[in-house]
């Protein structure tokens, strides 16, 4: 089984969503990485969907999502018609990234940052990555993404379930990130 299940020539291309004409609710600055302590990752997805579906002067951001949830469900709930949504899973198929292949994951994210001046990345499934890899290796991926994001006009959203990490691990994950606060109150 291939570890990265994209058919040749079928690499998902990032395309802007049509603007919905609703307000931009999250002020996520270009070149910044944001951590959201929550489970399930509803604030993270809401912020991501809001950024790609709303115009802020120059139009909506181009998005890329990597998620543990099935892409069809994510697309339906968040109205994502053009945004690439990769599934973090061990199943074979198009648009699937294996949790054990951190190289392909990093390459996908870094490539997107390089190709999109005003992008937004959502990486949902950090706990799953850590359960399939050494924490230090996953941290290196996050650090690499951070370095690329901070030299770009893109943003990075990382939902984290704080129950799944030791305080030291959380501190290491969050040390270069800004926290989206107020995420615990849901209605």
């Amino acid at each position, binding site marked *: 089984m291939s570890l990265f299940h994209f058919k040749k020539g079928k690499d998902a291309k990032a395309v802007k969503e049509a603007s919905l*004409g*609703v*307000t931009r609710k999250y002020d996520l600055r270009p070149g910044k990485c944001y951590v959201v302590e929550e489970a399930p990752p*509803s604030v993270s997805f809401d912020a991501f969907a809001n950024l790609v579906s709303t115009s802020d002067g120059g139009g909506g951001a181009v998005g890329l999502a990597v998620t543990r949830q099935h892409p069809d469900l994510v697309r339906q*709930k968040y109205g994502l018609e053009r945004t690439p949504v990769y599934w973090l899973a061990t199943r074979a198929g198009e648009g699937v990234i294996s949790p054990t292949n951190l190289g392909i994951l990093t390459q996908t994210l870094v490539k997107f940052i390089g190709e999109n001046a005003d992008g937004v990345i959502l990486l949902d499934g950090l706990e799953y990555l850590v359960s399939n890899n050494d924490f230090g290796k996953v941290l290196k991926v996050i650090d690499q993404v951070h370095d690329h994001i901070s030299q770009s006009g893109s943003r990075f959203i990382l939902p984290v379930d704080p129950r799944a990490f030791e305080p030291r691990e959380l501190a290491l994950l969050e040390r270069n990130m800004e926290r989206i*606060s*107020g995420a615990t*109150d*849901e*209605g």
Partner: protein
Amino acid sequence: MRILVVDDSEAFRRVMTELLLKAGYRDVKAAGGYEEALEAYKESHPEIVFVDMVLPGRSGVDLTREILSADPKAKIIAMSSIMNKSLIKESLEAGAKDFLLKPTNAIALSSILSTWSE
């Protein structure tokens, strides 16, 4: 500021009301259906109305139109648990000012309220 929350889910109404109270909005009313919402609107003339687009019986889009036909200055925020683009478009065309995805959170809610309370 007077706020009305219209949603058929009692749990959502309760949590949304708690979020609004926590954010400092004291005058919050809630209605579970179309007719109850119309009555509550006529009684209190809220400045902002959060309307679930999927209500039992007549839709939230119909409710938006009916409130706006009686009071064109009403500020209605459409809500739904999925970002259905055609439903959002229909809601905005009916006169809703904005859209809020359910479940919501303090950040999205406070952004909506600060935008539309002016």
